[in-house]
């Protein structure tokens, strides 16, 4: 029983670990250049009070102050229109973001702001009034605001309005009853569309999603209650908001900056972005694996601990590292991976970022490549006689030199090549993906490529049987330059080495035709479409003969009827009789017309008309005949 218990526990642990391994990490995020671009967009010169608001407040969210604060302050003061709630809102918010910039408002203005807080104003107006009052440091009645908001939310049930309501609630006193408004976060989160498990956004677009995120976190922080968003949902929101790297309007840029600020600095969730600096490749010349570990605003998490939980080789599944920390230097986390002397190839890293309970997506899987330089050892070339009677002459050639003498091989001999490929630094044998031997005839331009295969001891061998391979060479004798090509994704120095010249002599050489490069891309011969051949018909004479033959019995019938004395002397010219015969003839005519012109539907239509007339007439006529016959018989 204890065995079952422990195995159950182990499987549960494995399951939990597996689940953790599947946690979502951000696939779209802002890099330093994107943040700079965002800042540049927000730093454009102001055109009006609204753009001033977006720029000043947006930059403050990014932690940057506007270029010339005095200029900005005077611009705001000059453009504020005290009769417009909206203008007051922009002015108040912007001035609060600039240090030592104060706007004074008259009592009437203050009263108009208070008056705007009612059930008759839109949520947008309430939001602007409350924010203006709050930024100007004026008192406001939080409970009134709450009741006005609740009334308006039920009337304006759209995403933008509820987001503004959330934003407004975050400016109110903490003693106010914000519970119902807080629940709107969950309702609104349910309206988000999940796109492919990667993105989570409103159908209203990026701006609405970004503003929702900043409002939700603002309110959650204000009441100190964790927002009802799961970790995967937070990452999906990050993907949606930061997938766009250039923004159509100032308001869009502002919303993104707001969301970025909210996600990088709230009390509950802090998404982590882990990415390699450049390609995730280490080698002897670059032994350090460098990672950017930042928040969504691309600021490094200096207080975090970054740890390699495990690093396993993809090929051999052997674990190289376990629980190894990264060191922080200049905002970049580094680890000297080459110090563990890994063999070249790919490694699966499992990195964990700890140190803050708010971190989200802090377990990342990373694929790291270890490259190396290849060295070619013991390159031995020889010409072996097929019957092995004459001893082999082996010539060693050192890379990158070329063999001095040419090698001559005719049909009785084989040309052989052996070599070893080793890691330059460690001397470990390598088996790269591409090891080709290329023979190039300089005169004809012909080239033939073979693959060199390693044996069980990782020694590469290449043998060229001149007689056997003559078809590849088109039996063209001559001097061929021999090249060795070595390549692999993990090699830093791919090799193309002209090893030696080989003179090949082929038996019974045909008149050497100039090598026609097999051009595959010339137009092919045109295919003529063959229409369906009509079936063979018998000769017209035969058909005509048989037509006459088939019609001849009719003649016989007429003769027989005449002989029998069949006649129409009993024909009564009553109207029904005439009509019947006319109708019947019409029906026969209709059959002919059907054969030549009509389709079934038309025929049925005409047949119905003619047929019913004929039927009525015929019925009448036959009845008359029956009466006549009856009276005749019963005389």
């Amino acid at each position, binding site marked *: 029983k204890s065995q079952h218990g422990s195995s159950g526990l182990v499987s549960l642990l494995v399951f939990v670990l597996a689940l953790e391994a599947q946690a979502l990490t951000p696939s779209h995020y802002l890099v330093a250049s994107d943040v700079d671009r965002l800042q540049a967009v927000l730093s454009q010169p102001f055109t009006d009070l609204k753009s001033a608001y977006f720029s000043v407040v947006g930059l403050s969210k990014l932690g940057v102050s506007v270029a010339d604060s005095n200029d900005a302050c005077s611009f705001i003061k000059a453009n504020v229109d005290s009769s417009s709630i909206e203008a007051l809102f922009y002015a108040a918010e912007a001035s609060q973001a600039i240090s030592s910039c104060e706007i004074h408002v008259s009592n009437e203005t203050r009263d108009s702001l208070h008056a705007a807080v009612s059930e008759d104003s839109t949520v947008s107006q309430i939001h602007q009034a409350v924010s203006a009052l709050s930024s100007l440091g004026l008192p406001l009645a939080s409970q009134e605001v709450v009741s006005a908001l609740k009334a308006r939310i039920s009337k304006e049930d759209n995403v933008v309005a509820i987001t503004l309501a959330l934003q407004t609630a975050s400016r109110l006193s903490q003693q106010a009853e914000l519970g119902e408004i807080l629940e709107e976060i969950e309702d609104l989160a349910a309206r988000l569309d999940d796109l492919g498990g990667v993105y989570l956004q409103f159908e209203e677009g990026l701006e609405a999603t970004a503003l929702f995120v900043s409002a939700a976190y603002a309110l959650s922080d204000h009441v100190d209650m964790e927002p009802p968003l799961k970790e995967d949902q937070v990452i999906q929101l990050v993907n949606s908001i930061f997938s766009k790297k250039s923004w159509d309007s100032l308001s869009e840029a502002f919303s993104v900056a707001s969301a970025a600020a909210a996600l990088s600095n709230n009390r509950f969730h802090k998404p982590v972005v882990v990415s390699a600096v450049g390609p995730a490749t280490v080698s002897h010349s670059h032994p350090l694996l460098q990672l950017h570990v930042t928040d969504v605003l691309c600021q490094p998490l200096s207080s975090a601990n970054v740890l390699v939980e495990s690093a396993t080789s993809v090929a051999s599944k052997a674990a190289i590292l376990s629980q190894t920390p990264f060191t922080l230097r200049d905002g970049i986390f580094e680890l000297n991976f080459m110090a563990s002397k890994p063999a070249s190839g790919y490694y699966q890293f499992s990195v964990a970022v700890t140190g803050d309970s708010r971190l989200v997506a802090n377990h990342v899987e990373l694929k790291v490549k270890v490259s190396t330089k290849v060295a070619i050892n013991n390159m031995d070339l020889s010409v072996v006689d097929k019957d092995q009677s004459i001893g082999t002459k082996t010539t060693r050639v050192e890379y990158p030199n070329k063999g001095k003498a040419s090698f001559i091989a005719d049909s009785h001999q084989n040309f052989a090549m052996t070599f070893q490929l080793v890691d330059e630094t460690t001397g470990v044998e390598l088996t790269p993906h591409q090891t080709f031997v290329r023979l190039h005839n300089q005169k004809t331009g012909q080239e033939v490529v073979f693959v060199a295969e390693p044996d069980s001891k990782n020694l590469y061998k290449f043998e060229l049987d001149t007689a056997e391979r003559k078809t590849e060479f088109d039996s063209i004798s001559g001097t061929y330059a021999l090249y060795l090509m070595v390549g692999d994704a993990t090699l830093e120095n791919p090799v193309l080495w002209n090893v030696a010249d080989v003179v090949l002599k082929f038996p019974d050489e045909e008149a050497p035709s100039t090598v026609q490069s097999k051009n595959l891309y010339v137009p092919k011969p045109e295919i003529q479409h063959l229409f369906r051949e009509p079936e063979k018909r018998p000769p017209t004479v035969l058909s005509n003969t048989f037509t006459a033959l088939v019609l001849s019995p*009719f003649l016989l019938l007429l003769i027989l009827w005449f002989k*029998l004395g069949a006649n129409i002397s009993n024909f009564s010219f009553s109207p029904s009789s005439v009509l019947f015969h006319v109708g019947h003839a019409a029906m026969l005519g209709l059959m002919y017309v059907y054969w030549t012109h009509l389709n079934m539907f038309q025929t049925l239509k005409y*047949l119905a008309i003619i047929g019913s007339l004929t039927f009525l007439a015929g019925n009448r006529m036959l009845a008359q005949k*029956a009466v006549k016959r009856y009276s005749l018989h019963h005389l």
Partner: protein
Amino acid sequence: MSLSVIAVISRFLEEYRSSTSNKLKVIDAYLLYILLTGAFQFLYCLLVGTFPFNSFLSGFISSVGSFILAVCLRIQINPQNKGDFLSVSPERAFADFLFAHTVLHLVVVNFIG
């Protein structure tokens, strides 16, 4: 042997000539005509081939169908069979004959192509 066959046939023909009414002979002549027409069509098909098959079928079926309907008419008209067809008068038989022919020829002309 052959003598007796000829004797039987001539006896049959004699009986036929004397005992069948004219009306029935008229229908029998018609039957012979239909038979010959069908036979010649079949002969053509055997000799020359079945192309076009649908035409051959429709023509042949027309012959066969007409033959059958004429036989039905003959049976129903024959006064010797009156006991079997109390509800069917000769006129009714003829009307049925015409109606059935209409349907048959509708199908035949459709199929003849």
